[in-house]
């Protein structure tokens, strides 16, 4: 037996040795914590609650706006089932001033068969808030799967059918999915663009969303998916159930000049505000070019990366649009693209981009740290877009530059920066420039960089 397992581990490179992603419970928690004035009850052991705290941070939550509870399961509940304790905890939450209580499950109770849906249904008449059970055991998949699971339950359980559509309106989906420190800045930029186009945001699924907004999401005319990692199922559900049209489909998110231009034009066309779209693009591009021209001489030295072999290791949300950014803005030559997720719609977008750009990099979908390390060894890029993990992974390689652009970022703290849009371009150039300048701090790096 033992031999067979060891053999499996040593021969199959398809196995996940060191995942980047957290589990489904984390993604579900991240999603429900984006709903204001509600509570989250984790039905699981206290260690799993740590994933909820982690999600709490990613959603930039406020203890005055959301409540977090946990049943803190112990051995007794695993042996005898934890439904009684769950019921007891829900009834104790009666005193809380919340509109809904999202009940999430961790692995343990789902393995032993706790039926949280029935418990919530039975207790619903006894509590003054809505009970929303979400079966989100960690073994159901990654945080992206957890986001899809939670969005699915939220939409099915809370959204009211609306015959009346609000003209020029949109529902924003899964802005939080990548959990990078820039997602809130990106969301803010999207909202500003929509506002300038006169488009009303009916609801954001989810970020500081109210229950009322979520209930009325069917009144949105369109949906705008802000992730290449999660949320597509929610967009599809809103389309099929409530006729909410999906816009900006099949194109990369707005990172870099071309992607941003294409994305804004798509919006402008859909909402028949092509004039505004043109103006926004023209103003944005002028601002980037002028800033670059003014500071270029002594600040931005990024032109020196021309034709340098590069790797992009990121979530699909950032990773896919970065490909064009790397080629067009930095004139890099992407030779490795490793994405943490592997959604079919995202794969299609990337493959179209790669064709369109005329490059043939190695592509790894659903990468883990092990696969990334192996791919980096194989490709030996001189530049890596990635995270702190890749910073460590390349230590033994001949790779002088690592641009930390996605989570986990340990080297920098990012408060409210964006990668989307025109300021986003400058922000990314700033990261590149800082790393470029950083080489002077290390003789070794300087030699590796060959100048």
């Amino acid at each position, binding site marked *: 037996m*033992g031999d067979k397992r060891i053999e499996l581990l040593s021969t199959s490179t398809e196995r996940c040795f060191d995942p980047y992603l957290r589990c489904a419970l984390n993604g579900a928690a991240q999603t429900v914590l984006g709903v204001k004035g509600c509570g989250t009850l984790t039905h699981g052991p206290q260690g799993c609650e740590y994933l909820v705290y982690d999600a709490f941070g990613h959603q930039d939550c406020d203890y005055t706006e959301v409540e977090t509870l946990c049943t803190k399961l112990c051995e007794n509940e695993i*042996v005898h089932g934890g439904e009684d304790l769950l019921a007891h905890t829900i009834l104790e939450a009666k005193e809380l001033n919340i509109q809904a209580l999202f009940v999430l499950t961790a692995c343990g109770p789902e393995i032993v068969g706790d039926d949280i849906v029935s418990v919530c249904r039975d207790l619903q008449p006894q509590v003054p808030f809505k009970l929303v059970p979400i079966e989100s055991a960690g073994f159901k998949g990654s945080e992206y799967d957890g986001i899809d699971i939670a969005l699915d339950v939220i939409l099915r359980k809370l959204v009211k059918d609306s015959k009346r559509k609000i003209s020029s309106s949109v529902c924003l989906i899964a802005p939080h999915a990548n959990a990078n420190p820039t997602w809130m800045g990106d969301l803010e930029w999207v909202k500003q663009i929509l506002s300038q186009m006169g488009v009303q945001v009916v609801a954001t699924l989810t970020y500081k969303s109210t229950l009322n907004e979520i209930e009325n999401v069917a009144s949105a005319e369109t949906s705008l998916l802000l992730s290449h990692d999660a949320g597509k199922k929610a967009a599809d559900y809103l389309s099929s159930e409530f006729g909410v049209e999906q816009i900006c489909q099949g194109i990369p998110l707005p990172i870099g000049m071309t992607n941003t231009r294409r994305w804004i034009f798509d919006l402008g066309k859909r909402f028949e505000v092509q004039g505004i779209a043109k103006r926004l693009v023209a103003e944005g591009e002028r601002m980037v070019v002028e800033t670059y021209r003014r500071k270029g001489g002594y600040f931005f030295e990024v032109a020196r990366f021309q034709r340098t072999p590069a790797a992009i290791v990121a979530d699909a949300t950032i990773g896919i649009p970065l490909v064009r950014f790397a080629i067009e803005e930095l004139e890099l030559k992407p030779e490795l693209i490793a994405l943490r997720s592997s959604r079919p719609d995202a794969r299609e977008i990337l493959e179209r981009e790669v064709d369109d750009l005329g490059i043939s990099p190695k592509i790894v979908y659903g990468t883990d740290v092990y696969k990334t390390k192996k791919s980096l060894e194989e490709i030996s890029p001189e530049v890596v877009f990635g995270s702190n993990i890749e910073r460590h992974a390349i230590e033994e390689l001949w790779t002088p530059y690592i641009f930390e652009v996605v989570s986990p970022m340990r080297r920098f703290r990012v408060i409210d920066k964006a990668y989307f849009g025109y300021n986003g371009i400058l922000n990314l150039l700033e990261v590149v420039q800082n790393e470029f300048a950083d080489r002077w701090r290390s003789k070794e790096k300087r030699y590796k960089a060959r100048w």
Partner: protein
Amino acid sequence: MDVRQIAIYGKGGIGKSVIASNISMALHEKGLNVMQVGCDPKRDSTRVLVGGRLIPTVLEKYREEMRIGKDENAISLEDIVFKARNGIYCVESGGPEPGIGCAGRGVLTALQILKDLDAFGKYEIDVAIYDVLGDVVCGGFAMPMRKGYAREIYIVVSGELMALYAANNICKAIKRFAERSGIRMGGIICNSRNVKNEEEVAKEFSERIGSKLVHFIPRDDIVQSAEINRKTVVEYAPKSNQTRVYRDLAGEIIKNKSFDIPTPMEMDELERLMMKFSGEVI
């Protein structure tokens, strides 16, 4: 002397509890200090040893203590180990209500509590008999093997295909844990269902899986009568032929020194074995 830790496995309804209880009784007659541990949420393993009642279970007590804010340290051996009038120490692990919780984890929790409280040491137990429920249906039920509580495994079979199929599956579990926890197969016990060529089938099955047939127990109505009268056969009819068989089986087990790592069969091989003895043609 080390405690002999013997587990009786087998398909549900094959007669494990009856055999375990009679072995316990027969070993006790030989002057050994015996503890029988029922590892089944149905908690009926020790019923005939204690005169027909169902004793409180370890997990029941555990849950009671948890409910009032205490932990497993509040449990004492006196709460969970019951000495029957015949002198055998009886324990029932218990388990969750049907359809909820994890019985396998429950059995392990109960065994861990017994170990922590040093039950064998305190009662100076020579032989512990674990009567483990049904088939090995999940990782949890295999825990007594996995954690090394049971050192010797005996599997009860009949000459029926599904009983042998279950036994073969249990062999897979034994093989899996043999290296890690040192458990070994003691042998096969055939509890007759009056199937054609039953003893021969069981014997050949035992050999094919790399073990041996320890004993063949003939079918006898006296087993039913003893059960109705809330007694082991050994107590109910001490001079009967069936009692002699149980005493012989207990003797075989206690003097058994040859333990094996089984080599489970493939299903089609098992079917061919059945065909051979039933006279059926494929």
